[in-house]
């Protein structure tokens, strides 16, 4: 599953090649991706490499449209090419939908640059009103979402 935003592809390439003035690396990756905590955006339609899906509306609790899940915790860093597990801290919301359909997510920087995205397995995941949708948190491979570059 290809799952990297095309704008992020350019950010990564430009940040790692001499595309800046006088041959320095291009735009520092920290600037366009953002330097504050990253977020998970949940969508009711599929994200693509070009655009995020349609974000969920604000739910009864645990999810606010425009903010998403914003206290993910510090994931264990990749080492020797290992995957990064997201989130460290379990995330959840209580549905107000009839039902709320969860289809995809976007890992998004504080500067709104979208990073990695993906569909949830068995999507659409229909969450009945009053029920809780949870993405499992944990260190490394225990986290519900694994992100790797190959």
């Amino acid at each position, binding site marked *: *599953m*290809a799952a990297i935003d095309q704008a992020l592809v350019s950010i990564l390439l430009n940040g790692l090649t001499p595309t800046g003035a006088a041959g320095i690396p291009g735009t520092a990756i920290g600037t366009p991706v953002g330097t504050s905590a990253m977020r998970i955006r949940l969508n009711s339609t599929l994200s693509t490499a070009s655009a995020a899906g349609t974000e969920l509306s604000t739910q009864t609790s645990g999810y606010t449209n425009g903010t998403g899940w914003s206290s993910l915790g510090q994931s264990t860093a990749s080492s020797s090419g290992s995957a990064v597990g997201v989130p460290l801290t379990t995330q959840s919301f209580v549905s107000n939908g009839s039902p709320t359909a969860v289809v995809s997510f976007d890992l998004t920087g504080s500067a709104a640059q979208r990073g990695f*995205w993906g569909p949830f397995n068995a999507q659409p995941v229909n969450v009945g009103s009053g029920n809780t949708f*949870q993405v499992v948190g944990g260190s490394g491979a225990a*986290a519900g979402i694994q992100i*790797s570059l*190959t």
Partner: protein
Amino acid sequence: MTEGLAFEPEDEPAGWVIFDPDGNVVDSGGQTVTEASADAGEEN
């Protein structure tokens, strides 16, 4: 587990879970794996 992924943990942890108001598990799904690769941008 999404089909066609090269990275598949041996012991698949729960990726997402739905609980009813009483805390009972209503539904769950395997781990969601996002893998960006050389064909990034091409959707399978």
